């Protein structure tokens, strides 16, 4: 499955791009699987996602937990905890 990934704040800076379309292997089923898969793509991903517990994820622009299946996702946002307001 191909999905659009969008990155924000220090996740974006560490990975070095704000978005990309990625082909995911069949074994990537949940958000957890996706984060683990991304860390295999290079040092910059490893650096951005080395503490997956603090990473927040949104599927189709809605917050999800890390156990959420990603099937049907058009866009997955990956970012640090929010600090607006």
């Amino acid at each position, binding site marked *: 499955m191909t999905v659009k990934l*969008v990155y*924000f*704040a*220090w996740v974006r800076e560490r990975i070095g791009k704000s978005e990309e379309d990625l082909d995911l292997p069949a074994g990537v089923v949940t958000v957890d699987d996706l984060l683990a898969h991304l860390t295999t793509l290079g040092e910059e991903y490893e650096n951005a996602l080395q503490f997956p517990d603090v990473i927040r994820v*949104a599927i189709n*622009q*809605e*917050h999800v937990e890390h156990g959420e299946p990603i099937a049907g996702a058009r866009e997955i*946002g990956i*970012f*640090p*905890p*929010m*600090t*607006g*307001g």
Partner: protein
Amino acid sequence: MTAPTIRVQSTDFDLQAEISALTAGRKNIGAVVTFTGLCRDEQGALSALELEHYPGMAEAEMLRIGELAIDRFSLLGLTAIHRFGKIMPGENIVLVIAAAPHRQAAFDGANFVMDFLKTSAPFWKKEHAADGAQGDWIAAKDADDTARDRWR
């Protein structure tokens, strides 16, 4: 059902104009509470804040929070405006206006919206240091999660 007014914009907002827009022609509103968040200079250490957001999701999440607040506190009106881009010390960052028949609902509504906005609306602040050094991303505070959780 009252619909919240939500805006995400780079430009400043006018507090009085926003209050007037919310209350114009209304005779059932007895209380309007406003909250404005401003950029501090941190005792001169900070020259600006850079506000990044997730376009689309930021608006959607603010709308969701606004609808929750209207429903929970029976608000008669709600406006939430969040700026993005470079913001200098002394400038506005965020505005929340809650209108209700009585003061308690208006206070609670504005408070609720801010607590949820800080923890779930996709915005991130980066500091620019006064000495020109590349600043850090501001870390999320546990106190903000605690403030949100008291509404459970």
